[in-house]
């Protein structure tokens, strides 16, 4: 797959083009080899320094890259014969929430993930990864399925958030999210959540109340979109980068704040450079945590999760 460079990657792309152009002339002009080597060295150095010094907004751009692997890409790589499940049993099947039975290593897990869609048609069907209340309720149905059959739940989060639409409000998306939190907190099977791309606010958390929260290296997780934050606090759409910085939304920062448990490394430049590798690493890390969690009794698993969230918060008690 040809990579589509992001804006901050443009200098790299320009260098790569130059190298390609000179390489074409190599046959007729062997002396150019030195230039190629010199440029290639420049390229490597630039690449290293670029990805070593990413700003929060750059991480977010990688997390939102149009070629980023989505939930289906992971499920397919983990289990080529995974079985998809559809519908909330109440009147709708939301394509933005992908659910199914997945063999993940030694585990039979219920896989639940938000899906953004690749083609324009798919994107529209998936509402750009923003589930409707019916999507959250579809996930809820699978939580209960997992509980009944004592299977771990693995969720993959990549969503800008819940959808600000009339239908979503009329169908009470706030309640749909709240009930998911309520029910997730009571499960006695292990729940592992992975933020694979964008973790957008309540819409992300609706499948994110887990024993372990993992984040891909370039993924982000925030209480409000940086655009929303910038427009409310700075009253300016140009302050998105500042908002990204202020909210501490990158995987490393949130790991430091103690809210996530593990960060999964991505290949240089981001997960879209190697789907197979990222899927493999994610699988290894999820299984590592499942190995730990399945040692606990079912009641201990529930308590482990409740205690995790009971302890999150930063305040002063005088």
């Amino acid at each position, binding site marked *: 797959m040809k990579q589509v460079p992001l804006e901050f990657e443009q200098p790299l792309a320009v260098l790569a083009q130059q190298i390609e152009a000179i390489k074409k002339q190599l046959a007729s002009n062997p002396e150019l080899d030195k230039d190629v080597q010199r440029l290639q060295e420049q390229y490597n150095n630039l690449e290293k320094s670029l990805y070593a010094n990413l700003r929060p907004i750059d991480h977010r751009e990688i997390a939102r890259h149009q070629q980023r692997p989505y939930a289906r890409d992971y499920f397919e790589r983990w289990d080529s014969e995974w079985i998809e499940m559809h519908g909330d049993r109440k009147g709708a099947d939301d394509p933005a929430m992908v659910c199914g039975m997945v063999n993940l290593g030694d585990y039979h897990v219920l896989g639940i993930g938000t899906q953004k869609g690749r083609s324009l048609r798919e994107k529209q069907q998936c509402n750009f990864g923003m589930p409707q209340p019916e999507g959250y309720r579809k996930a809820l149905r699978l939580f209960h399925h997992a509980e009944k059959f004592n299977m771990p739940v693995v969720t993959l989060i990549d969503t800008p958030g*819940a*959808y*600000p*639409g*009339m239908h*979503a*409000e*009329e169908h*009470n*998306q*706030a*309640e749909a*999210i*709240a*009930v998911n*939190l*309520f*029910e997730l*907190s*009571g499960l006695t099977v292990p729940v592992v959540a992975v933020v694979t791309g964008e973790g957008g*606010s*309540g819409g992300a*958390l*609706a499948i*994110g*109340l887990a024993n372990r929260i993992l984040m891909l290296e370039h993924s982000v*997780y*925030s*209480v*409000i979109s940086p655009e*929303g*934050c910038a427009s*409310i*606090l*700075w009253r300016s759409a140009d*302050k998105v980068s*500042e*908002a990204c910085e*202020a*909210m*501490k*939304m990158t995987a490393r920062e*949130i790991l430091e*704040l103690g*809210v996530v448990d593990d960060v999964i490394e991505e290949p240089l430049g981001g997960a879209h450079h190697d789907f197979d590798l990222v899927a493999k690493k994610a699988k290894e890390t999820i299984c590592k945590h499942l190995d730990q969690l399945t040692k606990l009794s079912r009641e201990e698993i529930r308590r482990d*999760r*409740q205690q995790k*969230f*009971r302890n*999150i*918060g*930063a*305040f*002063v*008690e*005088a």
Partner: protein
Amino acid sequence: MDLKDWFDKRKKRRDDEKGKAPQPIEPSDDICALWTNCFQCRELLYTRDLRVNLHVCPKCQYHFRIGAIERIDQLADEDTFEESDANLTSSDPLKFSDTDNYPNRQREASRKSGLTEAIVTGTCKIKTYDAALGIMDFGHFGGSMGSVVGEKVTRITERAQRDKLPLIIVSSSGGARMQEGIFSLMQLAKTSSALKSFQDAGGLYISILAEPTFGGVTASFAMLGDIIIAEPGARIGFAGRRVIEQTIRQKLPADFQTAEYLLKHGQVDMVVERAKLADQLAKLIAFHKLPEKKTAVTTPDAVPARPKQPTKVS
């Protein structure tokens, strides 16, 4: 002014007034203006009358937003409210700064509201029934939920569970507090998780939605009541009206996201006007008392015993 001082002062004022002829009203520190324009019908109202009428417009029944202290005063039996966890204050875990830094914004919020945080919690009696109470105040930092609000809601829920009290929370909030980033978001999970334990243990939770209730608060504890009550005219939702209009590029109906609209769409159990709220709460609490306890508790006059259901004959 701390909450206790306020109640003491109010009691003193009441005691003073008992033996006296009515005095002409003078603007005091807790009456900012003599006259108030009704937001809805534009009627010019005498602020003192408005206060006596529970801040409900006598002409059009518009329910004005009220602060936590006034709400407690309206709901709790006199001198029964005991505040808990008043000593919790926000820290600044992200060292957050936009056009001003978070500690400054907190100080400014406290200066305006007279409160330390956007919720006041405690225990009280409501028409003689013991209850655990949480009252949010939109006047403090837009009623936003950060770590302290999350912790106080969690603690009062745990308290209600431990002491087997009904839990009543009045929400009024713009949503999660952005300045605490991911910590704010996680308070949705924390409060919902505490409510799960409480409700599994058989606890009764009545959620009251007041003008306005949005975002993270709606998407967590506000929507998890065994019973959900909305105040007339209150605007309640997840996403804000303006954001929705910008997204879908169409005008929304005038009553969209109002309490009455939610009632019509099956999202709340009832819309209860402010003057009847305390009585309604007492009725609901009484109804959920276990039969053996019911016989032990003498029914107060204000709460008529519910008539026995006629036996259904099929």
